């Protein structure tokens, strides 16, 4: 009994240390995000005060209103939404079928196809952006959203196929065999049996594709010239030159670009992490 209580004492002490460490880590890691949120809710004079306060003294949504009404921000927002959504839809549509083939069907060249997927994930974007720039120009797609949509689809595909493959493999094969015996064609089996079961996988790749399109910077920077076409990342980056040191606008803009992805991520993080592991570690 004495030993048991000693153990419990040691256990609770360890737990205390663990929680302290976790809390400390959480504070350090999340402080930048907290500070962005807090600063963006401060009126300009407070933003540039000598004495900083952790929370706004006079809370205000003024910065958000200013960036939304006084700049081209809504346009950038819409452009980003459009580019990220369309490229995600294309990515999911194409990768669902490819991943199914990779997961379930034995065909000549399957190994080679898998390797191609892995290798293309490794290509540095800074290397691809130069030749793509030339190709895009040749196709007359320079300064169009189509260029970005195609590029984002191409760059997400290898990873999303790999990710979905893991989800499909986890679905029991007997289900398909049963459908085949009932006389369903391969495509029908896939649509009616497999896809409905792969919900979490679809959610994961959808989120992954969207976050990637929403956040992408380099290709948008190189492929777009007209302000009207700017996506959020480059639109926001351009604030630095146009509105020098208007941190009120820049911070509110950063908040707006972060909010949707953060929201989706927290909502679906379980699936995304699952997919990340299915794709990345199984290798």
């Amino acid at each position, binding site marked *: 009994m004495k030993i048991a209580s000693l153990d419990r004492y040691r256990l609770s002490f360890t737990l205390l240390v663990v929680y302290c460490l976790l809390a400390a880590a959480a504070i350090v890691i999340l402080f930048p995000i907290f500070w962005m949120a807090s600063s963006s809710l401060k009126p300009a004079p407070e933003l540039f005060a000598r004495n900083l306060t952790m929370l706004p003294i006079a809370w205000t949504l003024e910065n958000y209103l200013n960036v939304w009404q006084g700049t081209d921000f809504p346009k950038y927002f819409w452009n980003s939404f459009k580019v990220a959504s369309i490229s995600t839809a294309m990515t999911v549509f194409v990768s669902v079928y490819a991943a199914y083939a990779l997961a379930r069907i034995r065909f000549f060249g399957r190994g080679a196809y898998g390797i191609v997927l892995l290798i293309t994930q490794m290509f540095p974007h*800074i290397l691809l952006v130069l030749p793509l720039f030339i190709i895009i120009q040749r196709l007359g797609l320079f300064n169009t959203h189509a260029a970005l949509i195609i590029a984002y689809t191409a760059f997400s595909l290898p990873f999303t196929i790999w990710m979905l493959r893991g989800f499909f493999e986890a679905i029991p094969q007997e289900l398909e065999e049963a459908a085949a015996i009932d006389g369903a064609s391969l495509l029908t089996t896939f649509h009616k049996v497999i896809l409905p079961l792969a919900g979490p996988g679809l959610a994961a790749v959808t989120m992954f594709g969207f976050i990637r399109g929403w956040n992408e910077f380099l290709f948008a920077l190189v492929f777009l010239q007209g302000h009207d076409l700017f996506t959020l990342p480059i639109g*926001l980056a351009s604030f630095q030159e146009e509105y020098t040191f208007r941190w009120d606008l820049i911070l509110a803009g950063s908040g707006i670009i972060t909010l949707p992805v953060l929201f989706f991520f927290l909502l679906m993080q379980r699936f995304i992490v699952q997919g990340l592991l299915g794709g990345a570690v199984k290798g």
Partner: protein
Amino acid sequence: MFLQKRARFAYYLILPSLLIITLLDLVPIIESVVVSLQSQNMGRANPDAFVGLAHYARALFDEPTFWSSLWKTLIWTAFSVIGAYLVALGLALLLHMDIWGRGFFRALFLVPWVIPDVATALLWKWLYGDEFGVINFLLTKIGVINRPVLWLSDPLMAMPAVVLVQVWKLYPVMFVVLLAALQNVPKELSESAVIDGANIWQRFRFVTFPFIKATSIIVTLLASIWTFQAFDIVYLLTGGGPAGATKILPTLVYDKAFWGLEIGYASAIALLMLIALLIISVAYLLLYRAQSDVIEEARA
């Protein structure tokens, strides 16, 4: 007959993806090799003229920036990856324990991963600010410094400053992967180690680590590849400055291509970068193999 039909079906299924990947990943790589051998220069009269390896020679022998950029890229990569790995490992070990609120903390620590690069860079620029930056404010307040540090505009401080941001950005993915790897450590083993009187460090060194070693190798290699070619954070935070202090290879390529307008030359530098990356990756894996052989022998 049945098999053949299934296989044909598979080809239809992968065809679109193969087409897209070929056209936008594989063809561009070949194209960039071709371009690197030409005098491609926006606005030049005869851009397709073949110049052989001239661009490569220029980068390797006439361009002092190439070697210094390569060196800076190595430093940037090594410190970012080691830092991120340590943070990720520490958090993974803590959150592998069966404690209340584990799921909540796991989600929390993943958040930096989804913050857009632009927001990350701008937000850190705000934190690092000379005059109104909260980091300087807090450090002054607790008396560590008595005058603001110019984090991003002091050539000495700029590299550590951008590395810290990359660590913040990079560790979440490594954290997830390590957390999954920790699930492979058999519970009985660490329990019996406790009974044998092993302390925390010994338990980690001899029980836990061997089980996550392979995953650690893979994940640090992947993180190195990503960081070696990372562009956004550094470009947005310092643009390669001050005085070239953070001019890593991707920013050099970007400058040569889109400011210098020398696409051919920039392609050559980018391909040299890829070669350096391959050499490092292979060396890394060989080192790992050699080391694990030594350990195997020691065990036997």
